[in-house]
Protein backbone atom coordinates (compact mmCIF):
# COMPACT_ATOMS: atom_id res chain seq x y z
CA UNK A 1 0.00 0.00 0.00
CA UNK A 2 1.39 3.41 -0.97
CA UNK A 3 0.07 6.95 -0.72
CA UNK A 4 -1.56 6.71 -4.16
CA UNK A 5 -3.64 3.92 -2.63
CA UNK A 6 -4.45 6.14 0.37
CA UNK A 7 -5.63 8.82 -2.09
CA UNK A 8 -7.93 6.30 -3.77
CA UNK A 9 -9.33 5.33 -0.36
CA UNK A 10 -9.90 8.92 0.76
CA UNK A 11 -10.85 10.71 -2.43
CA UNK A 12 -14.58 10.05 -2.28
CA UNK A 13 -14.88 11.21 1.33
CA UNK A 14 -14.93 14.99 0.72
CA UNK A 15 -17.65 14.92 -1.95
CA UNK A 16 -19.84 12.20 -0.48
CA UNK A 17 -19.24 13.36 3.08
CA UNK A 18 -20.30 16.89 2.25
CA UNK A 19 -23.36 15.60 0.41
CA UNK A 20 -24.25 13.65 3.56
CA UNK A 21 -23.65 16.72 5.75
CA UNK A 22 -25.86 18.89 3.53
CA UNK A 23 -28.58 16.22 3.73
CA UNK A 24 -28.42 16.24 7.53
CA UNK A 25 -28.48 20.04 7.67
CA UNK A 26 -31.52 20.25 5.36
CA UNK A 27 -33.25 17.56 7.45
CA UNK A 28 -32.50 19.55 10.61
CA UNK A 29 -34.16 22.61 9.03
CA UNK A 30 -37.23 20.61 8.02
CA UNK A 31 -37.56 18.87 11.39
CA UNK A 32 -36.21 21.80 13.41
CA UNK A 33 -33.99 19.32 15.22
CA UNK A 34 -30.99 20.56 17.21
CA UNK A 35 -29.51 17.04 17.28
CA UNK A 36 -29.56 16.71 13.50
CA UNK A 37 -28.07 20.17 13.17
CA UNK A 38 -25.21 19.28 15.51
CA UNK A 39 -24.71 15.99 13.66
CA UNK A 40 -24.36 17.86 10.37
CA UNK A 41 -21.78 20.23 11.90
CA UNK A 42 -19.79 17.25 13.19
CA UNK A 43 -19.87 15.71 9.69
CA UNK A 44 -18.67 18.99 8.10
CA UNK A 45 -15.87 19.38 10.66
CA UNK A 46 -14.67 15.77 10.32
CA UNK A 47 -14.85 15.82 6.50
CA UNK A 48 -12.94 19.14 6.43
CA UNK A 49 -10.19 17.45 8.47
CA UNK A 50 -10.11 14.33 6.27
CA UNK A 51 -9.99 16.51 3.14
CA UNK A 52 -6.49 17.68 4.12
CA UNK A 53 -4.77 14.24 3.90
CA UNK A 54 -6.92 13.60 0.83
CA UNK A 55 -5.40 16.62 -0.89
CA UNK A 56 -1.85 15.85 0.31
CA UNK A 57 -1.96 12.20 -0.78
CA UNK A 58 -3.07 13.39 -4.22
CA UNK A 59 0.38 14.93 -4.74
CA UNK A 60 1.91 11.61 -3.71
CA UNK A 61 -0.28 9.80 -6.24
CA UNK A 62 0.86 12.28 -8.89
CA UNK A 63 4.48 11.41 -8.01
CA UNK A 64 3.78 7.67 -8.29
CA UNK A 65 2.00 8.04 -11.63
CA UNK A 66 4.31 10.57 -13.25
CA UNK A 67 6.54 7.92 -14.76
CA UNK A 68 3.65 6.52 -16.76
CA UNK A 69 3.60 7.96 -20.27
CA UNK A 70 -0.15 7.63 -20.83
CA UNK A 71 -0.86 9.93 -17.87
CA UNK A 72 -2.69 13.10 -18.83
CA UNK A 73 -0.48 15.57 -16.99
CA UNK A 74 -2.59 18.63 -17.81
CA UNK A 75 -5.66 16.84 -16.44
CA UNK A 76 -3.69 16.08 -13.24
CA UNK A 77 -2.79 19.76 -12.90
CA UNK A 78 -6.39 20.82 -13.56
CA UNK A 79 -7.56 18.27 -10.95
CA UNK A 80 -5.10 19.59 -8.39
CA UNK A 81 -6.14 23.20 -8.92
CA UNK A 82 -9.82 22.28 -8.79
CA UNK A 83 -9.19 20.34 -5.58
CA UNK A 84 -7.49 23.33 -3.93
CA UNK A 85 -10.30 25.61 -5.11
CA UNK A 86 -12.74 23.30 -3.29
CA UNK A 87 -10.48 22.64 -0.28
CA UNK A 88 -10.34 26.32 0.73
CA UNK A 89 -14.14 26.78 1.15
CA UNK A 90 -14.30 23.28 2.67
CA UNK A 91 -11.89 24.30 5.44
CA UNK A 92 -13.94 27.47 5.97
CA UNK A 93 -17.11 25.37 6.32
CA UNK A 94 -15.22 23.12 8.76
CA UNK A 95 -14.20 26.15 10.83
CA UNK A 96 -17.69 27.71 10.84
CA UNK A 97 -19.14 24.30 11.77
CA UNK A 98 -16.74 24.05 14.68
CA UNK A 99 -17.79 27.55 15.79
CA UNK A 100 -21.43 26.50 15.56
CA UNK A 101 -20.72 23.41 17.71
CA UNK A 102 -18.76 25.53 20.15
CA UNK A 103 -21.53 28.06 20.55
CA UNK A 104 -24.87 27.13 19.05
CA UNK A 105 -26.05 30.19 17.23
CA UNK A 106 -28.86 30.14 14.76
CA UNK A 107 -27.15 32.39 12.21
CA UNK A 108 -24.62 29.72 11.43
CA UNK A 109 -27.25 27.54 9.85
CA UNK A 110 -27.98 29.41 6.58
CA UNK A 111 -24.33 30.44 6.26
CA UNK A 112 -23.12 26.86 6.56
CA UNK A 113 -25.82 25.61 4.20
CA UNK A 114 -25.03 28.12 1.44
CA UNK A 115 -21.26 27.70 1.71
CA UNK A 116 -21.41 23.91 1.95
CA UNK A 117 -23.49 23.70 -1.24
CA UNK A 118 -20.97 25.88 -3.11
CA UNK A 119 -18.15 23.72 -1.70
CA UNK A 120 -19.94 20.54 -2.69
CA UNK A 121 -20.26 21.74 -6.29
CA UNK A 122 -16.57 22.73 -6.41
CA UNK A 123 -15.50 19.42 -4.87
CA UNK A 124 -17.69 17.44 -7.25
CA UNK A 125 -16.02 19.29 -10.11
CA UNK A 126 -12.57 18.39 -8.71
CA UNK A 127 -13.65 14.75 -8.33
CA UNK A 128 -14.99 14.73 -11.88
CA UNK A 129 -11.70 16.02 -13.32
CA UNK A 130 -9.86 13.52 -11.10
CA UNK A 131 -11.88 10.71 -12.62
CA UNK A 132 -10.61 11.66 -16.06
CA UNK A 133 -6.99 11.02 -15.01
CA UNK A 134 -7.36 7.27 -15.34
CA UNK A 135 -10.40 7.24 -17.58
CA UNK A 136 -9.55 8.97 -20.86
CA UNK A 137 -12.78 7.58 -22.30
CA UNK A 138 -14.80 10.16 -20.35
CA UNK A 139 -12.71 13.19 -21.30
CA UNK A 140 -14.76 15.55 -23.43
CA UNK A 141 -13.27 16.66 -26.71
CA UNK A 142 -10.80 19.51 -26.23
CA UNK A 143 -10.36 18.68 -22.49
CA UNK A 144 -12.79 21.05 -20.89
CA UNK A 145 -10.96 20.26 -17.65
CA UNK A 146 -8.03 22.48 -18.49
CA UNK A 147 -10.18 25.43 -19.51
CA UNK A 148 -8.20 28.47 -18.36
CA UNK A 149 -11.13 30.44 -16.96
CA UNK A 150 -11.03 28.82 -13.49
CA UNK A 151 -8.69 30.24 -10.84
CA UNK A 152 -5.81 27.94 -9.90
CA UNK A 153 -5.02 28.52 -6.21
CA UNK A 154 -2.59 25.56 -5.94
CA UNK A 155 -0.32 27.04 -8.60
CA UNK A 156 -0.78 30.55 -7.18
CA UNK A 157 0.14 29.38 -3.67
CA UNK A 158 3.28 27.62 -4.90
CA UNK A 159 4.32 30.66 -6.94
CA UNK A 160 3.69 32.97 -3.97
CA UNK A 161 6.11 31.01 -1.77
CA UNK A 162 8.73 30.36 -4.45
CA UNK A 163 8.80 33.92 -5.86
CA UNK A 164 9.27 35.67 -2.51
CA UNK A 165 12.19 34.49 -0.37
CA UNK A 166 10.66 36.01 2.81
CA UNK A 167 7.46 33.96 2.68
CA UNK A 168 8.94 30.65 3.86
CA UNK A 169 10.72 32.08 6.96
CA UNK A 170 7.65 34.15 7.92
CA UNK A 171 5.45 31.06 7.55
CA UNK A 172 7.87 29.17 9.84
CA UNK A 173 7.52 31.90 12.47
CA UNK A 174 3.74 31.69 12.29
CA UNK A 175 3.81 27.89 12.22
CA UNK A 176 5.48 28.11 15.65
CA UNK A 177 3.05 30.76 16.86
CA UNK A 178 0.18 28.47 15.82
CA UNK A 179 1.91 25.50 17.45
CA UNK A 180 2.24 27.33 20.77
CA UNK A 181 -1.41 28.46 20.70
CA UNK A 182 -2.68 24.98 19.82
CA UNK A 183 -0.36 23.05 22.11
CA UNK A 184 -0.66 25.46 25.05
CA UNK A 185 -4.44 25.67 25.10
CA UNK A 186 -4.96 21.93 24.46
CA UNK A 187 -2.33 21.17 27.13
CA UNK A 188 -4.32 23.18 29.69
CA UNK A 189 -7.59 21.52 28.60
CA UNK A 190 -5.96 18.07 28.68
CA UNK A 191 -4.49 18.71 32.13
CA UNK A 192 -8.02 19.54 33.30
CA UNK A 193 -9.42 16.42 31.56
CA UNK A 194 -6.72 14.23 33.07
CA UNK A 195 -7.37 15.66 36.53
CA UNK A 196 -3.95 17.29 36.99
CA UNK A 197 -5.70 20.58 37.61
CA UNK A 198 -9.20 20.77 39.10
CA UNK A 199 -11.48 22.99 41.12
CA UNK A 200 -13.61 24.36 38.25
CA UNK A 201 -15.98 22.84 35.67
CA UNK A 202 -14.56 21.89 32.28
CA UNK A 203 -17.03 24.28 30.62
CA UNK A 204 -15.14 27.23 32.16
CA UNK A 205 -12.26 26.51 29.76
CA UNK A 206 -14.66 26.71 26.82
CA UNK A 207 -13.73 30.30 25.95
CA UNK A 208 -10.10 29.32 25.44
CA UNK A 209 -10.87 26.68 22.79
CA UNK A 210 -11.15 29.08 19.80
CA UNK A 211 -7.52 30.05 20.44
CA UNK A 212 -6.50 26.42 19.97
CA UNK A 213 -8.59 26.20 16.80
CA UNK A 214 -7.04 29.47 15.60
CA UNK A 215 -3.61 27.89 16.15
CA UNK A 216 -4.68 24.81 14.19
CA UNK A 217 -5.98 27.06 11.40
CA UNK A 218 -2.75 29.09 11.24
CA UNK A 219 -0.77 25.87 11.00
CA UNK A 220 -2.98 24.37 8.31
CA UNK A 221 -2.54 27.51 6.18
CA UNK A 222 1.21 27.91 6.75
CA UNK A 223 1.77 24.15 6.48
CA UNK A 224 -0.14 24.03 3.21
CA UNK A 225 2.06 26.84 1.82
CA UNK A 226 5.19 24.78 2.67
CA UNK A 227 3.61 21.77 1.01
CA UNK A 228 2.58 23.64 -2.16
CA UNK A 229 6.09 25.03 -2.58
CA UNK A 230 7.94 21.72 -2.09
CA UNK A 231 5.44 18.84 -2.31
CA UNK A 232 8.01 16.10 -2.88
CA UNK A 233 9.92 17.04 0.25
CA UNK A 234 6.79 15.91 2.12
CA UNK A 235 5.11 13.22 0.02
CA UNK A 236 8.37 11.24 -0.10
CA UNK A 237 8.82 11.38 3.68
CA UNK A 238 7.16 8.85 6.00
CA UNK A 239 7.56 11.14 9.05
CA UNK A 240 5.21 13.56 7.29
CA UNK A 241 2.67 10.78 6.67
CA UNK A 242 2.72 9.97 10.39
CA UNK A 243 2.45 13.63 11.30
CA UNK A 244 -0.62 14.16 9.10
CA UNK A 245 -2.34 11.04 10.43
CA UNK A 246 -1.75 12.29 13.97
CA UNK A 247 -2.94 15.83 13.13
CA UNK A 248 -6.19 14.26 11.92
CA UNK A 249 -6.59 12.41 15.25
CA UNK A 250 -5.62 15.49 17.22
CA UNK A 251 -8.17 17.59 15.33
CA UNK A 252 -10.85 15.00 16.09
CA UNK A 253 -9.90 15.05 19.78
CA UNK A 254 -10.83 18.75 19.84
CA UNK A 255 -14.45 17.70 19.44
CA UNK A 256 -14.59 16.24 22.95
CA UNK A 257 -14.04 19.41 25.02
CA UNK A 258 -16.12 21.33 22.45
CA UNK A 259 -19.20 19.10 22.71
CA UNK A 260 -19.08 17.20 25.99
CA UNK A 261 -18.31 19.69 28.70
CA UNK A 262 -21.43 19.33 30.86
CA UNK A 263 -20.75 18.23 34.40
CA UNK A 264 -22.14 14.76 35.15
CA UNK A 265 -24.77 14.61 37.90
CA UNK A 266 -25.35 11.02 39.03
CA UNK A 267 -22.63 9.13 40.91
CA UNK A 268 -22.26 6.59 38.10
CA UNK A 269 -21.88 9.32 35.50
CA UNK A 270 -19.26 11.08 37.60
CA UNK A 271 -17.09 7.94 37.73
CA UNK A 272 -17.69 7.17 34.07
CA UNK A 273 -16.97 10.71 32.95
CA UNK A 274 -13.81 10.90 35.07
CA UNK A 275 -12.42 7.78 33.38
CA UNK A 276 -13.42 8.89 29.89
CA UNK A 277 -11.99 12.34 30.42
CA UNK A 278 -8.73 11.02 31.82
CA UNK A 279 -8.33 8.70 28.84
CA UNK A 280 -9.14 11.40 26.27
CA UNK A 281 -6.93 13.99 27.98
CA UNK A 282 -3.92 11.67 28.04
CA UNK A 283 -4.49 10.46 24.43
CA UNK A 284 -4.85 13.99 23.10
CA UNK A 285 -1.70 15.11 24.92
CA UNK A 286 0.30 12.16 23.54
CA UNK A 287 -1.05 12.82 20.03
CA UNK A 288 0.05 16.47 19.99
CA UNK A 289 3.48 15.60 21.43
CA UNK A 290 3.85 12.97 18.68
CA UNK A 291 2.85 15.59 16.07
CA UNK A 292 5.69 17.83 17.31
CA UNK A 293 8.03 14.81 17.34
CA UNK A 294 7.37 13.85 13.72
CA UNK A 295 7.41 17.50 12.63
CA UNK A 296 10.78 18.08 14.21
CA UNK A 297 12.21 14.78 12.96
CA UNK A 298 10.91 15.38 9.43
CA UNK A 299 14.31 16.34 7.96
CA UNK A 300 16.04 13.42 9.71
CA UNK A 301 13.58 10.51 9.67
CA UNK A 302 11.68 8.97 6.83
CA UNK A 303 13.83 10.08 3.92
CA UNK A 304 14.97 6.94 2.20
Amino acid sequence: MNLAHVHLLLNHVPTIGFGFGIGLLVASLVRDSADLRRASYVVFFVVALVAIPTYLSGNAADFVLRTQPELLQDVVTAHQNAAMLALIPMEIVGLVSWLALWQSRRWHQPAVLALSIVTFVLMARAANIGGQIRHPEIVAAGTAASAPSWPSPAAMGAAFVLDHPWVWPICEVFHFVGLCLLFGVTLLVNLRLAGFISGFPLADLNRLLPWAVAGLGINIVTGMLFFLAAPEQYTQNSAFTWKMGLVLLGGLSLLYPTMFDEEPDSAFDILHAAMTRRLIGVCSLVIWIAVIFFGRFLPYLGTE
Partner: protein
Amino acid sequence: MASVLAQLEQSGLATWIHESGLLYGYPLILFLHTLGLSTVVGLNVAIDLRLLGVASRVPLASLDKVFGLLWAGFGVTAVTGVLLFVADATKHASNPAFFVKLAFVGGGVTIVALLRRRVFHGGEHGRFLAAASLGCWFVALTAGRLMAYVSEFIS
Protein backbone atom coordinates in the same frame (compact mmCIF):
# COMPACT_ATOMS: atom_id res chain seq x y z
CA MET B 1 36.45 34.61 23.42
CA ALA B 2 36.75 33.15 19.92
CA SER B 3 39.06 30.43 21.19
CA VAL B 4 36.65 29.50 23.96
CA LEU B 5 33.85 29.13 21.41
CA ALA B 6 36.02 27.08 19.10
CA GLN B 7 37.06 24.89 22.02
CA LEU B 8 33.40 24.35 22.90
CA GLU B 9 32.65 23.41 19.34
CA GLN B 10 35.47 20.87 19.25
CA SER B 11 34.70 19.42 22.66
CA GLY B 12 33.70 15.83 23.10
CA LEU B 13 30.18 16.97 23.95
CA ALA B 14 29.76 18.87 20.68
CA THR B 15 31.08 15.91 18.69
CA TRP B 16 28.68 13.60 20.52
CA ILE B 17 25.71 15.86 19.70
CA HIS B 18 26.62 16.02 16.02
CA GLU B 19 27.60 12.41 15.51
CA SER B 20 25.70 10.18 17.89
CA GLY B 21 23.04 9.43 15.32
CA LEU B 22 19.34 9.92 14.94
CA LEU B 23 17.64 9.07 18.17
CA TYR B 24 19.81 10.57 20.85
CA GLY B 25 21.84 13.22 19.10
CA TYR B 26 21.02 16.52 17.47
CA PRO B 27 17.46 15.72 16.26
CA LEU B 28 16.34 14.47 19.68
CA ILE B 29 17.79 17.54 21.39
CA LEU B 30 16.04 19.76 18.83
CA PHE B 31 12.74 17.93 19.45
CA LEU B 32 13.05 18.29 23.24
CA HIS B 33 13.90 21.97 22.77
CA THR B 34 10.72 22.44 20.71
CA LEU B 35 8.60 20.42 23.13
CA GLY B 36 9.97 22.40 26.08
CA LEU B 37 9.48 25.78 24.46
CA SER B 38 5.96 24.99 23.30
CA THR B 39 5.12 23.94 26.87
CA VAL B 40 6.57 27.15 28.34
CA VAL B 41 5.20 29.52 25.71
CA GLY B 42 1.93 27.63 25.21
CA LEU B 43 1.02 27.43 28.91
CA ASN B 44 2.14 31.00 29.42
CA VAL B 45 -0.04 32.19 26.52
CA ALA B 46 -3.02 30.33 28.00
CA ILE B 47 -2.37 31.99 31.40
CA ASP B 48 -1.95 35.40 29.71
CA LEU B 49 -5.26 34.98 27.87
CA ARG B 50 -6.96 34.12 31.17
CA LEU B 51 -5.52 37.26 32.78
CA LEU B 52 -6.65 39.33 29.79
CA GLY B 53 -10.23 38.18 30.40
CA VAL B 54 -10.66 35.01 28.28
CA ALA B 55 -12.27 32.18 30.32
CA SER B 56 -12.34 34.52 33.31
CA ARG B 57 -14.42 32.09 35.39
CA VAL B 58 -11.43 29.76 35.82
CA PRO B 59 -10.09 30.48 39.33
CA LEU B 60 -6.43 31.52 39.35
CA ALA B 61 -5.78 29.32 42.39
CA SER B 62 -6.55 26.26 40.25
CA LEU B 63 -3.92 27.29 37.71
CA ASP B 64 -1.18 27.70 40.30
CA LYS B 65 -0.14 24.07 39.77
CA VAL B 66 0.56 24.79 36.10
CA PHE B 67 3.62 26.85 37.01
CA GLY B 68 5.44 23.68 38.12
CA LEU B 69 5.01 22.20 34.65
CA LEU B 70 5.94 25.51 33.06
CA TRP B 71 9.25 25.62 34.97
CA ALA B 72 9.93 21.96 34.12
CA GLY B 73 9.40 22.87 30.45
CA PHE B 74 11.77 25.79 30.88
CA GLY B 75 14.37 23.48 32.42
CA VAL B 76 14.21 21.14 29.43
CA THR B 77 14.39 24.05 26.98
CA ALA B 78 17.35 25.64 28.80
CA VAL B 79 19.40 22.42 29.05
CA THR B 80 18.77 21.45 25.42
CA GLY B 81 19.40 25.09 24.43
CA VAL B 82 22.85 24.98 26.04
CA LEU B 83 23.60 21.71 24.21
CA LEU B 84 22.49 23.20 20.88
CA PHE B 85 24.66 26.25 21.55
CA VAL B 86 27.72 24.12 22.37
CA ALA B 87 27.24 22.16 19.16
CA ASP B 88 27.51 25.30 17.00
CA ALA B 89 29.06 27.85 19.37
CA THR B 90 30.86 30.16 16.91
CA LYS B 91 27.89 30.28 14.55
CA HIS B 92 25.37 31.21 17.25
CA ALA B 93 27.70 33.63 19.03
CA SER B 94 28.02 35.71 15.86
CA ASN B 95 24.27 35.75 15.21
CA PRO B 96 22.42 38.89 16.33
CA ALA B 97 19.07 37.03 16.21
CA PHE B 98 20.43 34.71 18.91
CA PHE B 99 21.02 37.59 21.32
CA VAL B 100 17.64 39.15 20.57
CA LYS B 101 16.11 35.77 21.36
CA LEU B 102 18.07 35.42 24.63
CA ALA B 103 17.07 38.91 25.75
CA PHE B 104 13.37 38.32 25.14
CA VAL B 105 13.45 34.84 26.68
CA GLY B 106 14.98 36.53 29.73
CA GLY B 107 12.14 39.06 29.68
CA GLY B 108 9.50 36.36 29.27
CA VAL B 109 10.88 34.24 32.10
CA THR B 110 11.14 37.25 34.42
CA ILE B 111 7.48 38.02 33.73
CA VAL B 112 6.53 34.41 34.62
CA ALA B 113 8.14 34.87 38.04
CA LEU B 114 6.47 38.29 38.46
CA LEU B 115 3.06 36.91 37.43
CA ARG B 116 3.31 34.19 40.05
CA ARG B 117 4.29 36.57 42.82
CA ARG B 118 2.27 39.66 42.07
CA VAL B 119 -0.84 38.27 40.39
CA PHE B 120 -1.32 34.71 41.62
CA HIS B 121 -0.10 35.38 45.17
CA GLY B 122 -0.31 39.17 45.35
CA GLY B 123 -3.77 39.81 43.95
CA GLU B 124 -2.88 42.29 41.17
CA HIS B 125 -4.97 42.04 37.97
CA GLY B 126 -1.85 41.49 35.85
CA ARG B 127 -3.23 42.68 32.54
CA PHE B 128 -0.15 44.72 31.69
CA LEU B 129 2.19 41.87 32.61
CA ALA B 130 0.12 39.43 30.53
CA ALA B 131 0.29 41.68 27.45
CA ALA B 132 4.04 42.18 27.93
CA SER B 133 4.45 38.42 28.28
CA LEU B 134 2.68 37.78 24.97
CA GLY B 135 4.91 40.38 23.29
CA CYS B 136 8.13 38.92 24.74
CA TRP B 137 7.32 35.39 23.67
CA PHE B 138 6.31 36.49 20.18
CA VAL B 139 9.64 38.29 19.67
CA ALA B 140 11.62 35.41 21.23
CA LEU B 141 9.85 32.88 19.01
CA THR B 142 10.35 35.02 15.89
CA ALA B 143 14.04 35.66 16.58
CA GLY B 144 14.64 32.00 17.42
CA ARG B 145 12.93 30.76 14.32
CA LEU B 146 14.75 33.27 12.09
CA MET B 147 18.21 32.43 13.52
CA ALA B 148 19.03 30.00 10.72
CA TYR B 149 18.05 32.56 8.05
CA VAL B 150 19.93 35.43 9.73
CA SER B 151 23.12 33.37 10.02
CA GLU B 152 22.83 32.40 6.36
CA PHE B 153 22.30 36.05 5.44
CA ILE B 154 25.32 37.43 7.34
CA SER B 155 27.77 34.73 6.29
